[in-house]
């Protein structure tokens, strides 16, 4: 009986290998069921209208291949425009804040956010046309440098000028910052002619399934290369998408259970650091527990969102690898980075590792790999997070932004050095032992290091480097 039950559940989980389910998902009730399942999974995290746009655009684009570019374009930019109006993304919140706090403007933030989004679409269109027509221009060859220079210039204007000039400069920064890491890949795809039409490139540059600063799906060129080319592939991809969404839901429920089961005092790393710094009574056990639970919750959260974004992209027909793939099985830190945050790692490799690798230390292989890793996991990582929080520079100033970023800078430095060493070691290492004790040892080393480093890299600006270092010392019984 037990075996039959297991067989049943196993068959249910491998639906993507079963021809019956391939036919099912192509039919109208299969599509409807897919929409309902995806909607229920996304329901706790998105507004209803957001969910309708996302799921409709994904399923319609997969269904009507001939009109795919138009449907994807409509989905992406309808999501952006409505998002700007209703505040689904951070753009409206940030515009409201600077309009009211710094320029005393009230009541027009929604219209301004909408206008900024339209201006952004025009900017992207001109950029892509420019890159296609002038592929050898400096901007087309170095789009990331170009975008970072543009943002820096606008920040400078925003800080030095006054009145409407400063306001417009700030708006440019807030509007373009989310696209900084998407534009280089779109420009590279446009230059190489890999992304199809400009319409499709604009649709996929920061597609509707991905309202973040990180390109889940690696940009239009990669997406087009991985689009399902026939009915069977499409059915398998969509079923895999549904499975990933359900797996994301399981991770959400796990985190929800964890936060309900845990006592309040174990839930918040920042609050625990604050209590410790204030000199309140503490126990080493509590500090360890908070560090471990915070790492678990953070890691599960990253994996959950990656599953949602890739799950929707798969529903749209894109055969993408998972964003997080069995990170607990990592045998080294380099493997952990690859498994835990695949698309972030790919972005850093493409924009930092590869260019550095081909320019520096060509005659010294170990130094070559180490330095390229440092530039990716260290410099690129820090830059990405600084750009993500660039609204703080506008709202709170450079001094605040840099002083609260010191702990993350340390995180990037330590992570990049550790991954660099791990990579060099793994090159010379024979195949790893498959014995369970060896696996356990690697697990404790990798996740022990990740948990300790998480104290500096939990993404919050609440405490500086020194305070977090004191907290780390307290874990080993060293405290004031």
């Amino acid at each position: 009986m037990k075996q039959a039950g297991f067989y049943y559940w196993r068959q249910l989980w491998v639906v993507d290998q079963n021809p019956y389910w391939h036919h099912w998902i192509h039919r109208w009730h299969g599509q409807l069921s897919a929409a309902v399942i995806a909607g229920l999974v996304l329901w706790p995290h998105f507004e209803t209208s957001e969910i309708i746009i996302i799921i409709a655009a994904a399923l319609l684009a997969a269904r009507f291949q001939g009109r795919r570019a138009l449907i994807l374009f409509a989905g992406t930019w309808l999501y952006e425009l409505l998002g700007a109006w209703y505040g689904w993304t951070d753009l409206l919140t940030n515009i409201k804040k600077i309009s009211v706090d710094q320029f005393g403007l009230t009541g027009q933030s929604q219209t301004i956010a909408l206008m900024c989004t339209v201006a952004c679409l025009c900017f992207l269109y001109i950029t892509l046309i420019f890159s296609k027509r002038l592929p050898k221009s400096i901007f087309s060859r170095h789009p990331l440098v170009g975008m970072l220079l543009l943002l820096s210039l606008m920040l400078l204007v925003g800080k030095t000028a006054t009145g409407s000039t400063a306001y417009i400069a700030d708006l440019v920064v807030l509007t373009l910052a989310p696209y900084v890491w998407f534009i280089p890949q779109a420009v590279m795809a446009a230059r190489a002619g890999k992304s199809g039409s400009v319409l499709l490139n604009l649709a996929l540059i920061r597609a509707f399934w991905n309202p973040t600063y990180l390109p889940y799906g690696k940009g239009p060129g990669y997406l087009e290369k991985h689009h399902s080319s026939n009915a069977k592939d499409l059915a398998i991809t969509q079923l895999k998408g549904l499975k990933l969404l359900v797996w994301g839901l399981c991770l959400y429920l796990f985190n929800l259970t964890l936060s309900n089961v845990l006592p309040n005092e174990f839930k918040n790393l920042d609050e625990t650091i604050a209590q410790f710094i204030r000199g309140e009574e503490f126990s080493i056990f509590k500090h360890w527990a908070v560090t471990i639970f915070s790492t678990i919750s953070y890691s599960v959260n990253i994996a959950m969102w990656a599953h949602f974004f890739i799950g929707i992209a798969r529903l749209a027909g894109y055969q993408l690898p998972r964003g997080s793939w069995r990170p607990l099985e990592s045998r080294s830190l380099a493997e952990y980075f690859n498994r835990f945050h695949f698309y972030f790692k790919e972005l850093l490799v493409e924009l930092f590792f590869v260019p550095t690798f081909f320019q520096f230390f060509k005659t010294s292989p170990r130094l070559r790999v180490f330095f390229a890793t440092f530039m990716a996991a260290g410099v690129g990582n820090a830059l990405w997070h600084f750009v993500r929080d660039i609204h703080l520079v506008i709202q709170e100033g450079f001094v605040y932004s840099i002083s609260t970023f010191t702990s993350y800078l340390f995180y990037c430095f330590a992570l990049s050095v550790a991954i660099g060493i791990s990579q060099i070691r793994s090159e010379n290492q024979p195949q790893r032992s498959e014995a369970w004790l060896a696996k356990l040892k690697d697990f404790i080393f990798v996740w022990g290091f990740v948990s300790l480093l998480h104290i500096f890299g939990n993404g919050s600006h609440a405490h500086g480097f020194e305070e977090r270092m004191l907290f780390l010392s307290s874990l080993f019984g060293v405290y004031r």
Partner: protein
Amino acid sequence: MSLEAKNSIRDFINEAMQKTGDHGIFDDHESLFSSGRLDSLTMMNLVMFLELNFAIDFSKFEFDVDLVDSINAIELLIKKK
């Protein structure tokens, strides 16, 4: 490209796959990196292997994963160098 040279590339990729616990077979046309089967670090190790053993100067090309994504692509790259 000689059969011996092709085999040396196959051996290199085989060894890299074994290290990741991938004991499956791969065809000459099969995507190794875009498919996610091998990671970017292995790609860079492969680049170093090709630089050293086949005197390929990658600074002559604009690097793209497609250049080394399969045995066939590598064969074409070596012919073009």
